[in-house]
């Protein structure tokens, strides 16, 4: 939890582990005691290779959390009319449509023969995605569908939380990152701080909102609404350590089947945000899904930033002194 911090803690505070880099026990860092004293860190592994784009997660999240609608816009850009995560969209299913011509540089692999036949949920498409690289074709033309249910990453080093001046954003005992609506004053600092563009201020309300990782359900020992609603187990909820192992196994399995484009995103505890609490298996570069390829928490540079602010302030003092030197008129 955020607590007033004495300035004497400054050098410790801006050090590696606190603000960036590997941190194995986020709850301990947030003051929840040893790993015996708090529950394990919970998170999501979203395996996009089995996502069918049904948006059950989006709906379940809206329903459970009573998130207001955010307009009924048709974008015309794809099947994705939700468009992005935001104050009133805590799960967002991205639909990437790659006609084969445009993926010529990265040709899709032949669908492996030994996979279970995909279920047709009646999604509009050129055919049923047949392979685990989500490619399908009919006749001359083909399309590769990439569907991915995006969500707040519940970063190990969460910039939104670090910059929040009111303490509205806090780390829960499950290691997740949650806004307290009764404290948030809508300063909006968390919005440009998030390297993934997740959190936003809700218009008309004035406060910031994002995925809570269903904090209320977790406290009752239930799984999050979106994971519960997912029919393909694309959204897997569980203890982060266990999810990471499961993801490694799944990746190896896909690579064995020749789906070389599969890669994990946000799984590495050494990455720019110290690893994500909600991480992904993707079938293309992150930016294709609207994810930053190499996000770094802004607070990694905070020590340098404050140092330069100090030097800037000292320069201004110097300017003040110099102004009163020299001739009187």
């Amino acid at each position, binding site marked *: 939890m955020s607590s007033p911090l004495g300035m004497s803690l400054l050098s410790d505070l801006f050090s590696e582990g606190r603000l960036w880099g590997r941190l194995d026990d986020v709850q301990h860092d947030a003051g929840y005691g040893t790993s015996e004293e708090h529950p394990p860190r919970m998170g999501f592994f979203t395996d996009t290779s089995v996502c069918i784009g049904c948006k059950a997660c989006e709906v379940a999240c809206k329903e459970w959390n009573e998130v207001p609608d955010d307009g009924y816009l048709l974008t015309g850009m794809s099947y994705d009319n939700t468009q992005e995560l935001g104050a009133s969209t805590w799960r967002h299913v991205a639909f990437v449509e790659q006609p084969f011509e445009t993926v010529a540089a990265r040709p899709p692999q032949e669908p492996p023969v030994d996979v279970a036949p995909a279920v047709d949920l009646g999604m509009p498409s050129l055919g049923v995605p047949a392979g685990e690289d989500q490619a399908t074709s009919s006749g001359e033309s083909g399309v590769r569908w990439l569907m991915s249910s995006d969500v707040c990453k519940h970063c190990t080093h969460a910039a939104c939380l670090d910059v*929040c001046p009111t303490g509205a954003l806090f780390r829960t005992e499950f290691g997740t990152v949650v806004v307290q609506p009764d*404290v948030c004053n809508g300063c909006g600092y968390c919005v440009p701080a998030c390297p993934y*563009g997740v959190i936003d201020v809700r218009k008309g309300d004035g*406060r910031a909102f994002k995925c809570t990782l269903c904090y209320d359900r977790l406290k009752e020992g239930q799984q999050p609404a979106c994971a519960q609603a997912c029919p393909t187990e694309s959204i897997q909820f569980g203890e982060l350590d266990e999810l990471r192992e499961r993801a490694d196994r799944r990746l190896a399995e896909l690579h064995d089947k020749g789906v070389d484009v599969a890669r994990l995103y946000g799984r590495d505890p050494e990455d720019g945000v110290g690893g994500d609490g909600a991480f992904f298996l993707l079938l293309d570069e992150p*930016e294709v899904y609207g994810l930053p390829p190499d996000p770094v928490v802004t607070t990694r540079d905070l020590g340098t930033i404050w140092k330069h602010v100090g030097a800037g*302030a000292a320069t201004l003092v110097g300017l003040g002194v110099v*102004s009163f030197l020299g001739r009187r008129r």
Partner: protein
Amino acid sequence: MPRGEASMVPEVEFESYYGRPILKEPTWKTPDVPLYLFLGGLAGASSLLAEGAALTGRPDLERVARLAAAGGAAAGTVALVHDLGRPERFLNMLRVLKPTSPLSVGSFILAPFSGLAGAAAASDLTGRLPRLGRLAGAGAAALGPPLATYTAALLANTAVPAWHEAHRELPFVFGGSGAQAAGGLAMMLVPLDQAAPARRMALAGAAVEIAAAESILLRRGLAAEPYRIGMPGRLMTMARNCTAVASAATALAGRRSRLVSVLAGATYVTASLATRFGIFEAGRASARDPKYVVVPQRERVRARQGASAKMTG
């Protein structure tokens, strides 16, 4: 380095999700926030001018600078509170002191500064409690420089490429720009025979500001592009031109002509305003365009992969 097309980073190919932004554009409102950046700089640097004027016996300069410090802080606070989604919860800013949040640190600078600068100005105007007034003024002068420069951390400690990548230069831009505004305002309102420190502050501040802003353009590559092009680019150019004209006029005739002093002072203030709006808008532009996020991050990934390939290969 030549400006314009020749110095622009060549167009780069990158992938994105239908060209949509990756980052959220800051929800901070304009003019509230850029105005606050300007007023904080004006007030902070004015508190220094006021203290210097008091120490060296320049009552007219002291009066104007004290009012600028108090007025700037008060108006800045109004702008900041107005920007909040829930203004009635402004005091939640003072619930905790978080060194990781420049906005939190800044609130703990702004609140006492406003009080002290207000008390010093009130004492100066009314002539009451002169000793306490001076003490308050000294306190404000101690908090003034951090007030003028912490806003650089406010912008830089975000994921916004144009702001974050300029984190080494922005504090100097803001400090110099604040000195320019404070000096400029005093040049407009103070008789020539007491305005020498104001002129020197504006001139020196302008030099620091221009050097730091140029250094962003020279050193920050693609992340500096938003400062050159489009509306923010025009604002930054306007700021630089105003600063150059005002500095030339001040150096040549600022000491002799009241009219020149007033016009040059107003031009300095305009330049400082344009700088703040330009920097603010450049940040917004860099958050809107996924290019500024994807291209440098992709380069980083490639460099790392290259390095590890070399090590294993």
